[in-house]
């Protein structure tokens, strides 16, 4: 083990691979020292775990209505109490991780590649492609995300898929900008020239050489954005535009709990705290990743 660590901490690395491993190791070390980052990593993993084992963890079906004990406070039967239809809040809280994480995952999966493609092409090919792509990116970037998503969902009908599309449409521009900046920085590098001279087809160069260099900053940005996506999705849920009832979604739960806020405040408080937790987790994770992958911005 010590030989590995010596190898990683070597002041004069013998190869680029060794240097990169060393810097990642040091970054990881830095990140793990920070309690906030550790909390972020643990929190995100917890959320994912909970979403997966939800049925076993919840115990009770989240959609079972029981009018005999509606709006009851936390008790041994219902750990977090019940909502206005007598549904168990603990169970709905657990199951609520699913739509949230689903939206986050889908938005990330759709928007990041979109942004990367636009940005890399704009940066690599330059000329009118660059101008057109960047203009379009600038226009999308200047649009209000929540309000536009709201309008989209209002017109197209509520539901998770529409919410995802709506958020994705305004989420991709930052990645395009980022990818373009990174691409421009290396566009005239020797190794790219060498690849071209060697006859490697352009798409291969872009995917094999340019793309990996854009990934670290994109990953950081995506993680940080996911915190905002959670808030936007919850906002849409609050307005009744996200996951539809009876699906347990935190934003919608806060909305229904609103009516009973002054007496049975836990109905709204608990799901909201979960949203805060989720958003916080991704923010911390993103900050931690930034420490690992991009230390000069720490």
């Amino acid at each position, binding site marked *: 083990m010590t030989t590995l660590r010596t190898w990683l901490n070597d002041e004069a690395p013998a190869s680029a691979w060794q240097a990169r491993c060393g810097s990642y190791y040091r970054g990881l070390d830095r990140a793990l020292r920070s309690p906030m980052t550790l909390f972020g990593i643990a929190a995100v993993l917890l959320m994912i775990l909970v979403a997966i084992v939800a049925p076993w963890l919840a115990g009770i079906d989240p959609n079972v209505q029981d009018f005999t004990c509606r709006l009851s406070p936390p008790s041994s039967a219902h750990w977090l109490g019940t909502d206005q239809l007598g549904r168990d809040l603990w169970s709905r809280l657990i199951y609520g991780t699913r739509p949230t994480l689903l939206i986050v995952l889908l938005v990330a999966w759709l928007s990041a590649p979109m942004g990367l493609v636009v940005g890399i092409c704009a940066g690599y090919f330059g000329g009118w492609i660059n101008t057109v792509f960047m203009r379009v990116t600038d226009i999308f970037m*200047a649009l209000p995300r929540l*309000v*536009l998503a709201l309008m989209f969902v209002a017109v197209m009908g509520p539901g998770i898929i529409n919410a995802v599309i709506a958020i994705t449409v305004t989420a991709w521009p930052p990645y395009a900008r980022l990818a373009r900046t990174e691409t421009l920085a290396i566009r005239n590098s020797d190794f790219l020239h060498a690849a071209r001279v060697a006859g490697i087809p352009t798409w291969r160069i872009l995917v094999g050489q340019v793309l990996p260099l854009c990934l670290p900053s994109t990953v950081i940005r995506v993680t940080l954005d996911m915190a905002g996506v959670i*808030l936007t999705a919850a906002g849409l849920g609050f307005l009744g535009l996200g996951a539809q009832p009876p699906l347990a979604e935190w934003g919608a739960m*806060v909305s229904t*709990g609103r009516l009973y806020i*002054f007496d049975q405040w836990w109905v709204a408080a608990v799901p909201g705290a979960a949203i805060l937790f989720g958003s916080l987790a991704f923010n911390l994770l993103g900050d931690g990743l930034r420490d690992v992958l991009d230390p000069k911005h720490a």
Partner: protein
Amino acid sequence: MKRWMFARSLARGATRALLTFALTVVGLLLITFLIQKASPIDPVLRVVGDHASPEAYHAVYVEMGMDRPLYVQFGRYLGKVSRGDLGVSTSTGRPVVEDLAQYFPATVELATVAIVLGVLFGVPLGMWAAQRHNGKVDQYVRVLSLVGYSVPIFWMGLMGLLLFYAKLKLVAGPGRIDDIWKYTLQSSTNFMLIDTLRDRNWEAMRNALSHLILPALLLAYMSMAYIARMTRAFVLEELGKEYVLFARVKGATETRLLWLHVLPNIAAPLVTVISLSYATLLEGAVLTESVFSWPGIGLYVTNALFTADVTAVLGGTLLIGFCFVALNAVSDQFGYWLDPRVR
């Protein structure tokens, strides 16, 4: 000679900004237009009803211009919007523009008070944290900021109402002003603070303030979180620069250094950050106003959503979108002007 060149470069920058702004607004309109076109709901049916005859349907179809090619329809749409015709709300029965004019001041008032508070607290806090980098203050400020932009605003509003209104009875509840005062006000700018001031109605003003204070403080906290974080980042970057060292060599105090030396240097990006935060507050109105029953654009749009009043939703979206884009453009220009190097 120099002044003429300066004026010319300023004019050039301004025209370019105006062009970008116009293009972005057109982009906004295009997107909203396309979304409407992609809607599964048939707008003609909404006008004629389900049981209309094919002739009536066709007549309305042509009248609404649906038979023309898309770009022509878009042109008509652009024309209508630029004339201020945003349609008629199906829930209030009034032209949407009138509705917006009535509700907009409330949103602006709340957002403005919030941003002022946010800046007043956020900038000094950010500077303080940067000065004590990695110290206790820095940690607290970072955690405070972190929570500030991770918290869902509508939930915080609810919790705030619960705590400060229901339990502690420190502030007034939902609404902008109690009904007693609402109809006695003579001035009618629809900005409560201005109206009560002009009427010299101090009771009413106190009442308005007690309604305003909670939502304003909560929104201020959110914008303060973002502003403090960005200020801290900007200041930290400046503190590594040589002119800071030179200022210390001159014998300047740390406070003087931060406020008189560093702040002018970060003024440009800071203005951009503040404008962005303001725009976000305006946008977030759709979530906060329903919680506080604050009669602004947000409440208008939310109500329109529940009554399926698409025209009103569209109108509200366009207004907020327009403000958002305008603020972005203005803040960019501001940044341009504040930097003497660019001049």
